[in-house]
């Protein structure tokens, strides 16, 4: 049993992401993303508490939390229509300009490492207003100065149709905001127990930082209660193993 006063890293990250999601209409979450899914469902519960029926949450991994009836293209069409406000991406490499690499390390034609592929990133990254980058392995291996292959660029040249893009990068160590005008990340806060020096040491790209870097705000008791009591059972339906480990809760029939 988790001690009620102990805040898990996953809870801190989910709470931080839920704050970033804010009051929007539609959050979609891709496969194998239990922490973003927890954050999205938390944002939805906060909406319910305020009496608004938003955000709508699509968990692409779940048949129940996924309304699509027009084939796999509907997610991308929906994003192209401007109907998806928040989405999450990760990257085998992420660089200081917000470029992500989901393809390969080394020369594309003779790679040293191969990742699965770019999925929908080369479309969604351009048209979803709040793209949140999420990578729990914060190292010089993953956060690099320049990605070897750009699956999707952090910023685009003037004139290129771009209604979306990265707004933040959340790692196991810290929370960066992305500044598209400066094409750089800015350190917003370090998570409790971590330091700015440690972040610098483990980050392959240069980034901006304020004079004083805050500590990431931990979830309030109200948020924690909401997450553990109301959100966790919903998470358990889609990510039973995660919910059992983090929230000590098992799925019950829907």
């Amino acid at each position, binding site marked *: 049993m988790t001690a009620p006063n102990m805040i898990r890293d996953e809870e801190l990250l989910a709470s931080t992401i839920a704050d970033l999601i804010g009051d929007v209409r539609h959050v979609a979450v891709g*496969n*194998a993303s239990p922490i973003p899914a927890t954050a999205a469902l938390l944002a939805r519960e906060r909406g319910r508490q305020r009496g608004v029926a938003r955000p709508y949450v699509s968990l692409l991994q779940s*048949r129940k939390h996924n309304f*699509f*009836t*027009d*084939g*796999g*293209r509907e997610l*991308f*069409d929906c994003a*192209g229509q401007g109907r998806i406000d928040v989405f999450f991406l990760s990257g085998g490499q992420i660089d200081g300009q917000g470029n992500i690499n*989901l*393809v*390969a390390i080394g020369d*594309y*034609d*003779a*790679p*040293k490492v*191969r990742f*699965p*592929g*770019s*999925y*929908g*990133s*080369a*479309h*969604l*990254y*351009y*048209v979803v207003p709040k793209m949140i980058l999420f990578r729990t392995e914060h190292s010089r291996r993953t956060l690099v100065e320049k990605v070897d*292959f*750009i*699956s*999707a*660029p952090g910023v*685009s*040249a003037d*004139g*290129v*149709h771009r209604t979306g893009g990265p707004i933040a990068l959340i790692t196991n160590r810290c929370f960066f905001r992305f500044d598209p005008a400066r094409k750089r990340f800015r350190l917003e806060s370090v998570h409790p127990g971590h330091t700015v020096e440690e972040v610098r040491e483990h980050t392959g790209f240069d980034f901006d930082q304020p004079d004083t870097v805050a500590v990431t705000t931990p979830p309030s008791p109200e948020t924690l209660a909401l997450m553990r009591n109301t959100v966790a059972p919903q998470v358990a339906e889609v990510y039973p193993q995660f919910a059992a480990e983090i929230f000590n809760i098992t799925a019950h029939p829907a």
Partner: protein
Amino acid sequence: MTQFAASVDDAVADIADGMLLAVPREVSGVPMEATRALIRRGVRRLHLVALPTSSLQADLLIGAGGVGTLETSAVSLGEFGAAPRFTQAVLNRSIVMKDATCPAIHAALQAAEKGVPFMPMRGLIGSDILATRPEWQVIANPYADNHDPIVLLPAIVPDVALLHAPLADRDGNVWIGRQRDLITLSHAARSTIVTVERVVDDNLLADPLRAPGVLPGFYVDSIAVAENGCWPLGLPDHYDTDAAHMKEYARLAASHDGFEAYLARYVLTPRAKAS
């Protein structure tokens, strides 16, 4: 016009070496029994297009040496890890890899569906995917006041769409339910081969409740019954992925010899699947 094949092996007989074969993504009804039949027959040099991603199907076909070119936006075993034979083939450069992004494959197949030579797509500009695909051209959007570059994608016209679905009727109509990618694939392709869990006697199009989820027999060239035909992958609303088997695959396929042992045990001997 639909033919009912006596066996899955017969149904895939017309898929010749070198053909452009299009298949659905890992959750939509992947014809795994038909894929094993293709491997048993020793298919070679396929240009495999997965709409828009693949898992075990692409990995198995690649590992067995059946793929010349792979066009997709990702191959992964998902929660069971990376796709080992795909990864190895790219590193060895034993397949030609055409990286894409999901909506580009959807749009290119929709172009074929509509009989137009190309479709426009937002995104892609500034991505290295575009840089590796010289056939994807950038034009100036003629409807913009200012310079507005946009990517055109040429149509993908598959020789064959290979699909699995829950039901077919005697007229060749196939009930695909919500898996509308199967309709796009079939419309786009020159021919369509479907394996199904079972064949029903009543006409699926005549039933107002089932008709909305039907791929009309008009598009379907050949049907074969393959019960549990997605195994070890799942079929939505019918059966789940066989997680134990997927773990076994991921473990064996990590090495060349392990993969050969997997092939010998589960693929090359017909019907030797775990129950």
